[in-house]
């Protein structure tokens, strides 16, 4: 294994790391990515077997504390109202995500200007627009052009079918006169770039055996590798190291045998997600940076945003599609996304319509009401909901608060002895009001769609899919960690490209925007290569 110095060292091979690696190779420098997880074989994924639900709840569970695979690190979430989830592998959490693919809207970048809260981004929607489009092409996005909630954009593939449940819910929105639109999904509806189309396996969140759902291990990485990018798996970075001038000069990492290794690099790029990135920066203390690398602002790990989620399930008399079809989303509604002060909260939320579960998960989750009854009522309780539910998720815009944070746990460590992250997070009063409003409106939709009964889950605890804000971007080094193109204010050859750089969260799933930012940062580096360290 070569440990020759490289030009660009990327830490993390997930959504942002894959996109960035594919683009930055054009710079002409050698590029290496260190990833703590393995490559995932599609043939190993749960939907290959009869026990797909059991494996989805265990080995492929989204919570790393449940999974406890060798690639995982523990997360202390005992003081968090929301449990963070993620996956550690080439592809990162895109292995287990639902591939719902909205992008931030133009007014999500100007929250301070528009609503007087949080902060504005140093970039605008228009800055990212070409990178959204390129990313849609690379990932393979299905959708219907012309959603009036967005500036015009054209997904490369036609939309996925709504299914019985989606058709039902769409008619509910129609009867109320509220906005709805088929989702942009990073799931291919037609054969595309050597990948076969979706065959409605369901269980997207335990990995797509068909390969129709985009994950960067099958989209960006194969192309990046053909271009010459190297990737080294099973490598967990302990710390980023500095030279005598205070520039990043590489990393120390544990290889898959647990041996500590050194890798030198001219540029270091961190792509470890909104928890892993601050964890690494805080673990990279030195005499020059006693509070953690690139942390002169004190904001590394602060302003953690998740997107609090509520859930309303409708029970319908006629059978719906059950678990078949992409399980993340059939359609979205931005009806209550814009701010309206008369509602008693600022900003807004997204409705995201989902399908239902397989039989075992139906029995365990029961729509949104918890496990179905045991004993003599069991079969009747189960039959009432199995294949008879469609649901609406309410995804609230989480505003940044410094008290919501990632710190280092004083005791908990991973298998290499590296301090683990501790999450401190409270759902704000604003978000609580937003969720309450959303639950009420979602019930209206469900009833308008013809549901005979409604089950409300006011707060979904295991909902921390979106890990945002913990190394935010800005032009002022006092109030941000990285500049407007991802470069750390304190260390001029250190970049952050994942969800950590988000200034505000919007009310939509962030992966499309995370990847557009990664491509934009790579493009900025290529255009500014002559003055990269100025």
């Amino acid at each position, binding site marked *: 294994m070569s440990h020759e110095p490289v030009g660009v060292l990327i830490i993390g091979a997930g959504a942002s790391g894959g996109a960035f690696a594919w683009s930055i190779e054009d710079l002409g420098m050698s590029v290496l990515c260190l990833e703590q997880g393995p490559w995932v074989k599609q043939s190993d*994924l749960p*939907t*290959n*077997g*009869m*026990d*797909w*639900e*059991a494996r989805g*709840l265990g080995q492929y569970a989204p919570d790393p504390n449940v999974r406890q695979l060798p690639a995982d690190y523990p997360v202390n979430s005992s003081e968090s109202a929301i449990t963070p989830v993620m996956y550690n592998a080439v592809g990162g959490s895109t292995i287990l995500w639902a591939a719902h693919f909205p992008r931030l809207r133009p007014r999500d970048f100007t929250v301070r200007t528009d609503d007087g809260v949080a902060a504005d981004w140093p970039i605008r929607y228009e800055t990212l627009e070409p990178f959204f489009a390129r990313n849609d092409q690379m990932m393979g996005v299905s959708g*219907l*052009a*012309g*959603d*009036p909630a967005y500036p*015009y954009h*054209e997904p490369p593939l036609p*939309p996925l*079918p*709504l*299914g*019985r449940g*989606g*058709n039902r819910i*769409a*008619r509910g929105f*129609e009867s109320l006169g509220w906005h709805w*639109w*088929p989702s942009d999904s990073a799931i291919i509806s037609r054969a595309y770039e050597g990948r076969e189309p979706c*065959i*409605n*396996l*369901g*269980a997207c969140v335990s990995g797509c*055996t*068909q390969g129709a759902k985009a994950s960067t291990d099958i989209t960006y990485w194969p192309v990046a590798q053909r271009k010459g990018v190297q990737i080294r798996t099973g490598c967990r970075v302990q710390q980023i190291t500095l030279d005598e001038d205070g520039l990043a000069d590489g990393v120390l990492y544990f290889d898959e045998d647990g041996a500590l290794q050194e890798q030198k690099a001219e540029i270091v790029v961190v792509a470890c997600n909104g928890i892993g990135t601050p964890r690494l920066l805080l673990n990279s203390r030195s005499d020059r940076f006693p509070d953690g690398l690139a942390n002169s602002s004190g904001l590394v790990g602060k302003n953690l945003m998740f997107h609090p989620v509520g859930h309303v399930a409708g029970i319908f008399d006629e059978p719906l*599609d059950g678990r*078949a*079809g992409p399980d993340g989303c059939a359609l979205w509604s931005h009806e209550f996304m814009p701010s309206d002060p008369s509602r008693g909260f600022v900003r807004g939320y997204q409705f995201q319509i989902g399908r239902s579960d*397989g*039989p*075992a998960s*139906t*029995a*365990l989750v029961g729509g949104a009401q918890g*496990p179905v009854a*045991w*004993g*003599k009522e*069991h*079969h009747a309780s189960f039959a009432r909901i*199995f294949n008879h539910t469609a649901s609406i998720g309410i995804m609230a815009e989480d505003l940044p608060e410094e008290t919501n944070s990632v710190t280092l746990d004083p005791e908990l460590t991973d298998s290499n002895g590296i301090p683990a992250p501790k999450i401190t997070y409270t759902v704000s009063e604003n978000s609580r009001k937003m969720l309450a409003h959303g639950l009420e409106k979602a019930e209206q939709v469900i009833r308008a769609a013809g549901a005979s009964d409604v089950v409300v889950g006011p707060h979904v605890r295991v909902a921390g899919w979106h890990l945002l804000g913990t190394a935010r971007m800005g032009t002022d080094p006092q109030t941000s960690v990285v500049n407007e193109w991802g470069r750390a204010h304190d260390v001029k050859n250190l970049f952050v490209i994942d969800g950590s750089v988000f200034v505000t969260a919007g009310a939509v799933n962030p992966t499309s925007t995370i990847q557009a930012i990664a491509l934009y940062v790579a493009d900025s580096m290529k255009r500014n290569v002559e003055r990269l360290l100025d």
Partner: protein
Amino acid sequence: MANEVSPLEEPAFMRAVLDLVIPPRADGVLPGAGALGLGGEVAEQLRADTSDGPGVAAGLAAVQASARARDAEGFTALSAVAQLAVLQSQLPEHPALIPGLIRYVYVAYYQHPTVLGGLEQPARAPFPEGFDVEETDPALLALLESRRIRAPED
């Protein structure tokens, strides 16, 4: 009590408990979880679960002990009504018993081919055949067509 056998090692006991958790459906199409032979699989999973398994095992031991206070032959010697009463009597002292048990019983039951067949679900892995899903209602798409914004060059 030193030689007391864990209830997890008693197949007849496990079968009886599981049949209380998921009894046979009234029409006879779906068997009880115990009759389906899931006791051994569930016991194995509980033994491997170092987090919740001990609590469930303790609860089951309490159920067996309570049953033996009624009948020296233990839980399986009781009527179904008496079994249910004994089980329920232990739940206040062992609140983790049912949640820990159903986590494994429900999953084992609902991925069993017999049960899937009874539910008129295909008893196969989702891949590679997949499933059919209803297409988007053309009437809904027509409504969207009238609202869609156009490309700048349209």
